[in-house]
């Protein structure tokens, strides 16, 4: 009986240890996903958002990108290399045309082809309403490359995958 008691205590300690290790030292995959969650949070916009929050979010969006990021979004005439300031400005101007925005990411497939590089394939869905009152609903498959720079995962490439070719 005493042995079983010690065995259970030992097992519980192992489980608690594992939880602590996972919480304190999150896996790289989780840290990559967190960048997408931040991007989603900062791109999304509620109708009550004030100018101060908008400016802060614009600044925050830029901090998620590498100094130079390659974008391939033909539908929005974005093709080439952009600085994080240019991306911030573009995001700000796009957000100002919407009264409400909600960006969500689904079906993450994360691979690490080499050290410090993450390749992520996922589905992005942007819904919302323009300032003119028109509904927006756009879903795209994205291929993103993130690079680990100064211990932070930053977007260095975003490409829209053509699922349906007209």
């Amino acid at each position: 009986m005493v042995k079983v008691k010690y065995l259970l205590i030992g097992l519980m300690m192992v489980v608690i240890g594992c939880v602590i290790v996972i919480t304190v030292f999150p896996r790289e995959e989780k840290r990559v996903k967190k960048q997408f969650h931040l991007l989603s949070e900062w791109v999304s916009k509620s109708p009550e958002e004030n100018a101060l929050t908008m400016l802060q979010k614009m600044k925050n969006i830029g901090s998620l990108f590498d100094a130079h990021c390659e974008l391939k979004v033909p539908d929005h005439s974005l093709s080439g290399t952009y600085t994080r300031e240019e991306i911030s400005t573009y995001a700000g101007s796009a957000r100002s045309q919407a009264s409400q925005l909600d960006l969500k990411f689904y079906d993450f497939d994360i691979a690490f082809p080499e050290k410090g590089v993450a390749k992520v394939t996922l589905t992005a869905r942007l819904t919302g309403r323009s300032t003119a009152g028109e509904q927006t609903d756009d879903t795209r498959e994205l291929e993103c490359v993130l690079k680990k720079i100064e211990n932070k995962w930053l977007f260095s490439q975003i490409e829209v995958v053509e699922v349906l070719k007209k």
Partner: protein
Amino acid sequence: MTVHHKIRKFFFPSLTPKFLIRVSLIALFAYLFFGYLCIPFTIQGISMEPTYHHGGVNFCWRLHYLFSEPKRHDVVTVRFAGSKVMLLKRVVAREGEQVEFRDGELFVDGKEIEEPYVRYPCDWNLPPRQVEENHIYVVGDNRNMPIENHHFGQASKSRIMGVPLW
């Protein structure tokens, strides 16, 4: 055993090993069946009106094309990066065929195709294009919108997830 006792036993069964095994098996079966074979989804958007309405609930049956190929007029689900977000579209042409729209009418290999499911007026014009190998051409039933605003085109067969159950 009284009725009251039977009802109580039904809602609060005793947690015997046999009962726990049965519950685990049912949960595992439901997870596999509804997660991989018969995926529930809600329809969002009007691109398949009037056949499928916004807000409708359906299931994607994944085994439909296990031993067959998508045929013209089949309604299929097309995946993005995974199965969480899919497109619901109708197959209008298969690989090697030539698709064209003339004043809203569908032409495949130069022959006009009758589409009884298209109920709303359409004025689309699309020059002829060949469907690539291992691809199918999909379009929504609701073509009562500018051609630029409708998400359609050729998709790789590997992106076909299945068919809606009804």
